[in-house]
């Protein structure tokens, strides 16, 4: 056997001593270097989900609309009329820290391939981003560089390939300074009878490589994403791939066209772990083997070793299995688009991944060994560690000017200020389907062919999850569904991105498990099964991990013809209705729960206590109320009350193109500060034509939902009272100027 592999080499590859022992025992020999490379990426956290797999099983994954659940490149749901939508979210966190522009760009490229590899045409992208504060005196300059790079990278790739980036969300905390999160969601649509799966089939059928040539970039990217960063993380820059959206645009069109020939039996993109993962997974899913000859793989660099070819993560490549005898139809299409398409091997009956180089076998491993036999850990966990105190500072009664100052601070905070600077860099309109773009509660695209529209929302709140991961996950699911409800859409299915620190630390593992369980409970409650997603662990640099930051992406179905109701007041003289009431979920431990608010973080300057309370049944009733009102055209506007509470939500409602002001009086027994800034869920602000007020009240009361009329739109000011007591009246134009300009000013600083 070759002397090049030893336990020491295996450890360098990120395998543990125990894992290496298991490799040698099951193989009955020492692996070759190429084999070790293959095993190390397939068994990496990124590819094998070895720390999370056991717990992911707790998530609900089936439902009447689910056509394809987890395990494929993306989940697929039935959207009616013979049409389907494929969607998934995926992270590119580690690469985006090392090389923000390319890291984020290739994140977009990767998730888009996951969508079109199933036969769907990608029609929407959303992204959830987490950065360190751009205005931090110490880390600000680095954070701003990362923010600018990531946004430019997403814009570059998405704009060029012609898929609109229609929405997303963005939040900031010190823990993300050295661990930014870039989670990209993509959705595609297609006919239900043209779904393609990533399974090899038919012994003797040709295995065909298409797309970009293989180079030395991105080698071991999956392993990089499965470890913490240290001082030498800059040295990992070569592990980040380089994207070419033009090439991917050609690949997209060519693949969809080639699929229409009927000659393709299975197809899979080459993402993490490149040729290794695609051959092993396609063989594994099909219950067959695959044999390839690396000499035939199109190569960008001379003299690449088998190890390098198998582990390269060069972008814009796909692997497909065609029907023997019909290869030429496939080749023809790729020639038209000027792309390489080469037969590199064939499907075999033996269930093995056999790799040859210059005719000599350099690796021979069972597909089952690589995927099914990958390690599965039930990692030890404690209870989640409390990092913030349960009790916060004593907050004396606030004066009107103090309340207004608080609102202005929130409107200027990176978390709540307008993100126009980000989303105007994205082409959110291309393909002319975007009926509700970025800046609202949910993005909506029409599916012209199917006569329906799809609403999408991404939500996550790391501040809540840090205080209670289970409750935080519940609240994310609830908010996501509520956002969809504001545009009249029925939530149908979900995808999740689980961003956490090092799972080998028991308190981190506890966060992960609690969040998964909470998410599973909530997705069952709201009938939004999870069709797939992504787990990103080891988001730690120099031992400093992130707050638990799960992100939910939920898709909702909306019939075309639902009257458009944006988030902002449209005309003066409408009644303002607060569906859900001022403080749903009760006032139990309100002082503690107030500590998780954006007000606590940005104005008080610390967080404490617990996330807001949630009554799941009441939340569902509120959502149903809002959906019915919006669908019946009774709402002129509908806006979720989220971060920053009622004060911020009311201000945002005034920030439409017409800048319609409002006079509001909130009935509340609680101090004005809590009434204005507490972040209780289950609340939506509507503006309603006075003549529709009765009907709106009837819908709400019929579902047992409190829906007080709290004021009237109109005027140039936002004037707010709590239980008759005047708090403040501020010109909408001034508030808008603060909100609209803050982020650009913070992020454009040198």
């Amino acid at each position, binding site marked *: 056997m070759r002397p090049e592999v030893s336990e020491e080499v295996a450890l360098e590859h990120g395998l543990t001593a125990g894992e290496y022992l298991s490799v040698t025992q099951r193989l009955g020999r020492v692996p070759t270097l190429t084999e070790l490379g293959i095993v190390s990426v397939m068994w990496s956290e990124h590819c094998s989900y070895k720390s999370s797999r056991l717990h992911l099983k707790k998530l609900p994954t089936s439902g009447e609309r689910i056509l394809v659940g987890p395990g494929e490149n993306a989940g697929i749901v039935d959207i009616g009329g013979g049409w389907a939508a494929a969607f998934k979210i995926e992270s590119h966190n580690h690469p985006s820290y090392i090389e923000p522009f390319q890291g984020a760009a290739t994140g977009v490229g990767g998730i888009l391939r996951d969508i079109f590899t199933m036969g769907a045409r990608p029609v929407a992208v959303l992204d959830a981003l987490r950065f360190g504060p751009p205005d931090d005196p110490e880390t600000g300059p680095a954070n701003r560089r990362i923010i600018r790079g990531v946004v430019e990278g997403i814009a570059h790739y998405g704009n*060029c390939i*012609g898929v609109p980036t229609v929405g997303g969300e963005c939040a900031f905390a010190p823990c993300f300074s050295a661990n930014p999160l870039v989670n990209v969601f993509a959705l595609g649509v297609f006919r239900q009878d043209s779904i393609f799966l990533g399974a090899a089939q038919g012994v003797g059928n040709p295995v065909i490589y298409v797309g970009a040539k293989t180079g030395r970039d991105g080698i071991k990217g999956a392993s990089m994403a499965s470890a913490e960063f240290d001082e030498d993380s800059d040295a990992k820059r070569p592990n980040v791939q380089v994207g070419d*959206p033009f090439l991917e*645009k050609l690949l997209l069109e060519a693949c969809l066209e080639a699929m229409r020939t009927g000659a393709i039996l299975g197809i899979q993109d080459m993402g993490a772990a490149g040729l290794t993962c695609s051959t092993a997974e396609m063989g594994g899913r099909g219950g067959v083997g695959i044999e390839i000859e690396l000499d035939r793989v199109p190569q960008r660099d001379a003299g690449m070793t088998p190890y390098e070819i198998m582990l390269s993560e060069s972008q814009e490549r796909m692997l497909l299995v065609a029907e023997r005898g019909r290869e030429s139809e496939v080749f023809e299409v790729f020639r038209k*688009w000027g792309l390489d398409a080469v037969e590199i091997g064939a499907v075999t009956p033996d269930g093995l991944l056999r790799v040859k180089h210059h005719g000599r076998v350099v690796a021979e491993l069972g597909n089952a060994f690589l995927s099914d036999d990958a390690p599965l850990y039930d990692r030890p966990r404690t209870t989640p560690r409390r990092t913030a105190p349960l009790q916060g500072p004593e907050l004396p009664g606030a004066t009107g000017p103090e309340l207004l100052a608080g609102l202005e601070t929130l409107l200027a905070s990176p978390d709540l200020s307008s993100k126009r600077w980000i989303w*105007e860099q994205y*082409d959110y309109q291309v393909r002319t389907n975007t009926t509700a773009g970025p800046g609202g509660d949910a993005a909506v695209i029409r599916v012209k062919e199917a006569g329906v529209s799809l609403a999408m929302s991404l939500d996550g709140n790391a501040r809540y999850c840090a205080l209670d991961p289970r409750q935080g996950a519940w609240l994310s699911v609830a908010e996501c569904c509520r956002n969809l409800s504001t545009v009249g859409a029925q939530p149908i299915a979900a995808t999740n991105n689980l961003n956490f620190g090092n799972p080998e630390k028991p308190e981190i593992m506890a966060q992960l498990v609690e969040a998964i369980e909470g998410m599973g409970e909530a997705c069952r409650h709201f009938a939004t099964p999870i069709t797939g997603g992504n787990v990103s662990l080891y988001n730690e640099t120099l031992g400093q991990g992130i707050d638990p930051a799960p992100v939910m992406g939920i898709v909702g179905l909306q019939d075309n013809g639902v009257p458009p109701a944006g988030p902002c007041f449209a005309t003066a003289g409408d009644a303002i209705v607060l569906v859900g009431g001022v403080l749903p979920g009760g006032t139990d431990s309100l002082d503690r729960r107030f500590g998780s608010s954006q007000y606590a973080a940005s104005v008080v300057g610390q967080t404490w206590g617990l996330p807001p309370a949630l009554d799941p049944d009441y939340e569902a009733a509120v959502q149903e109320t809002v959906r019915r009102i919006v669908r019946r055209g009774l709402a002129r506007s509908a806006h979720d009350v989220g971060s920053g509470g009622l004060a911020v939500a009311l201000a945002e409602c005034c920030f439409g193109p017409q800048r319609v002001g409002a006079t509001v009086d909130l009935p509340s027994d609680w101090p004005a500060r809590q009434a204005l800034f507490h972040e209780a869920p289950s609340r939506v602000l509507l503006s309603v034509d006075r003549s529709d007020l009765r009907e709106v009240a009837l819908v709400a009361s019929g579902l047992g939902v409190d829906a007080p009329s709290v004021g009237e739109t109109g005027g140039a000011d936002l004037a707010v009272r709590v239980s008759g007591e005047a708090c403040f009246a501020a010109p909408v134009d001034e508030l808008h100027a603060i909100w609209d300009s803050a982020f650009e000013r913070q992020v454009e600083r040198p």
Partner: protein
Amino acid sequence: MKFGVVIFPGSNCDHDAHYALSRNLGQQVAEIWHESENLQGVDAVFLPGGFSYGDYLRCGALARFSPVVRCVREFALAGGPVLGVCNGFQILCETGLLEGALVRNQGLRFICRSVEVLPATADSVFTAACEPRRPLRIPIAHGEGRYVADKATLDRLEASDRVAFRYRGENPNGSARGIAGVLNEGRNVLGMMPHPERACDAALGSTDGTAVFRSMIAAWEDARASHAA
């Protein structure tokens, strides 16, 4: 009327133009592949937005060497109406059918936004149906849409009434003299950065873009009627 929508590798607004022309305006549409040696007998050519040939070298620079652009050039020189939007505008400048050039936006960022443009002349097959002095609400989506030309060229364009559209209010990309679209000397070739094909459907918030296509259709119908008479 039969429009030809040219498809280059990297075009990404071809589908939008196709949909707007066929579904919103009820016209015939032919897709013309970049390697095509003829224009399938179309009555007008639409060069769509996107990133033709990856915008390698320079936006629109490679497209000018494609077989189809040779045909488009001949078609334009013979008086056929040619509309280039966004990347299509860049291509028309690169081919020399239009004067001036498009460079990176002032501010150096890609901008996607709905803007107002004013038709600056009624004397063209693209603007005749626009109401004078009524601004059109049409989206822009570009990183390199800042129109530049030397002073003599700009003066000449204005003197010969060849500025088709100007940005109203803010000048989003820093274009010289607020120019959003220009005509050739024959007035049958228009390049513009705003996307009229994205403003043809009430569901998307504006139908102002139809004015450009309605002008083209009316001109074609007039020509056919006078030909018949």
